[in-house]
């Protein structure tokens, strides 16, 4: 078992941390938040130069040929800086779906452009009525004159505001789940910022011309594997965010003076910080397990493990986020101060591709993690 970063992963992590430390201070981020498009195209170009936008797919398609584990490395650093660029949307979701399910022609047409930073993707999957179900879709694909169209409404589409092409999940006439590529121009968008500032949209498709990804119409397996890897990397991102919340809080406890002494002189508050640390370590361990699980071949085990990891991560992030704001007092409630933005990002992560109850239910019904003797 590889429980530590490899040298290569360490280097990757340091490179990104270094870049973000210089270019992503909280004030820069606040300026990005309030201005279109809500993130930095210059940094997107830097990520392309560093090879981050092609990280998980084959060198043949302009990628770096690294695994999902490296995506987790990237996202943990992104979590520390609260990166706003549509990386999860375009690379983790969109490009990985194309890489997993697309035909060689589709991969050749799309992936090199994603890697170069010239093409933005998104994955339109969540629906209002389906809540968190990934199979209970109301969006349908129908065949027309040798081609396909897709009809339905998707919500909470990460990066859906700016994507050039969108991968859409839809029920095929056989009742399978298919994945379809839809051009940005063929969709209607209701764009917004998410509660954490990342950009997205609700999308309306009305007989939108669509191209099936790959040759088989049944894409449920490819989709499940990409969703699992997205859940695992979101765990890593949340760990990065939690780590920053803890250290911001610790720093504050050491410097803020009330009643003639630093807040941190109160043992009651020292213990609160210690409990945050406990929660962080638990989350870090499960995020690592999720990363390892992506490399396994047992699909059921992978699925259960990444969901179990997300449960721990969400519990820890809730604890750490609420405590971080609380221990800052009023200042923690302000837009200007970073800690609330971490709370918001982790609260949104906790409700992306399933919430706590959904995950508990799913891991529980699938047998849990420890077998009965």
């Amino acid at each position, binding site marked *: 078992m590889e429980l530590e970063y490899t040298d290569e992963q360490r280097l990757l992590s340091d490179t990104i941390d270094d870049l973000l430390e210089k270019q992503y201070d909280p004030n820069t981020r606040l300026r990005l938040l309030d201005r279109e498009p809500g993130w930095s195209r210059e940094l997107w170009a830097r990520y392309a130069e560093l090879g981050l936008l092609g990280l998980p797919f084959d060198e043949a398609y302009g990628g770096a040929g690294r695994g999902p584990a490296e995506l987790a490395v990237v996202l943990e650093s992104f979590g520390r800086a609260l990166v706003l660029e549509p990386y999860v949307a375009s690379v983790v979701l969109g490009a990985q779906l194309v890489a997993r399910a697309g035909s060689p022609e589709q991969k050749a047409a799309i992936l090199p452009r994603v890697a170069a930073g010239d093409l933005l993707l998104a994955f339109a999957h*969540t629906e*209002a*009525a389906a*809540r*968190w*179900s990934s199979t209970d879709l109301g969006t349908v694909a129908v065949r027309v004159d040798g081609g396909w169209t897709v009809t339905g*409404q998707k*919500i*909470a589409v990460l990066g859906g505001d700016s994507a050039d092409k969108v991968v859409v999940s839809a029920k095929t006439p056989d009742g399978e789940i298919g994945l379809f590529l839809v051009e940005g121009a063929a969709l*209607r968008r*209701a764009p*917004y*910022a*998410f*509660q954490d500032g990342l950009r*997205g949209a*609700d999308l*309306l498709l*009305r007989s939108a011309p669509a191209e099936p990804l790959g040759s088989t119409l049944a894409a449920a397996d490819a989709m499940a594997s990409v969703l699992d890897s997205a859940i695992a990397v979101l765990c890593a991102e949340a760990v990065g965010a939690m780590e920053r919340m803890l250290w911001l809080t610790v720093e504050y406890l050491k410097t803020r*003076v*009330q*009643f*003639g002494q630093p807040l941190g002189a*109160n043992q*009651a*508050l020292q213990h609160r910080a210690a409990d945050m640390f406990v929660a962080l370590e638990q989350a870090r361990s499960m995020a690592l397990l999720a990363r390892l699980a992506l490399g396994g071949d047992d699909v059921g085990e992978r699925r259960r493990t990444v969901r179990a990891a997300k449960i721990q991560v969400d519990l820890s992030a809730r604890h750490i986020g*609420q405590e971080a*704001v*609380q221990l800052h*007092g*009023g200042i*923690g*409630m*302000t*837009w*200007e101060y970073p800690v*609330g*933005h971490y*709370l*918001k990002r982790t*609260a*949104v992560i906790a*409700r*992306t591709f399933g*919430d706590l*109850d959904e995950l*508990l*239910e799913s891991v529980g019904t699938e047998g849990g993690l420890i077998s009965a003797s």
Partner: protein
Amino acid sequence: MDIALSKEDRAFAEKLRGFFAEEVPADIRARLARGEHPTKDEVVTCQRILNAHGLAVPHWPVEWGGQNWTPLQRHLWSEEIALAHVPMPISFNTAMVGPVIANFGTDAQKQRFLPPTANADIWWCQGFSEPNAGSDLAALKTSAVRDGAHYVVNGQKIWTTLAQYADWIFCLVRTDPTVKKQQGISFLLVDLSAPGVTVRPIRLIDGSHEVNEVFFDNVRVPADQLVGEENRGWDYAKFLLGNERTGVAGVGLIKTRIARIKRLAGQAAAHGRPLVDDPLFRARLTRLEVETTALEMSVLRVLAREGRVGPGKPDPVSSVLKIKGSELQQEATELLVHVLGPAALAYRETADMPDRFAPLPEGALDALPTYFNWRKASIYSGSNEIQRGIIAKAILKF
């Protein structure tokens, strides 16, 4: 809960309920029921309606518009206001500065301030906290120096709720820097339109503008706007903060939040059935209802004792009500987010959707912002850590 009330108390509550339903504009109440905030005008309008019927300041002395109610009746009043989705009368007016002026002000101050304070002709805000005086409120530094018939005020207040609506601010100021810090503080009323006062907005994490910084630069305040005696301000502040012993629990607010959660969870589907029938969800909801009922019984116990022996000295049970009340208010906001599911994730200023998009479910706009915003409830009104300190001191007696 009704089983804990006498027939008379129930009739009293029902009468109020009928009044609110009939006299307070239905559109305002409907908006609040949907989780929207009242506008400044709506708050003022409603307070004036209540005031016209003697229902804005029932806990004030009778000669200034109060009612001779029992503590329990006052509680039922505030609870019914919440349950009827009536905007609360401005608490800075009715629960804070009004009683201070009524108890410690001069006759001239009472004449001048109490009627417009009850009628929301003046909107007050509270200038206690400062950047370096939060939990340690007595460390406040804003100074007021006597100069003839005036005080000259310099300094800064922070976290001043709704100062952007306010006409006046009641402040704690330092009038004697040479004595023990609690002993050099005075209670001063300041007109926000006076030269030298600047109000600056602070944006909160949910994007809202609710609090402000207030700066005082050589502001000349007539000396007849000092309340009570100079350097006794700390006592008046303690009186003010101790006044609302049971209101901080916010039982009515929690109940309205739970009622809305139940209604919306009946409309949301999960796994092919209404969310409200989902066992995990139901367990969460039921636990919240049980804890809220326990809190309400604690409130009633405190009120019963108060009715018997009168308001006594600070009681650690008030701290219990603050801690548990704020926590349950917060939990209710979180459960609503849960009901909304993925529909809670977008930040939206309006519920209008482009043509042909499905309409948004109720709660999509406010659920997650309110969760973020309500983290404040365990910070203000004496943080929950300070409250735990009070309880610990009372029971451990170290």
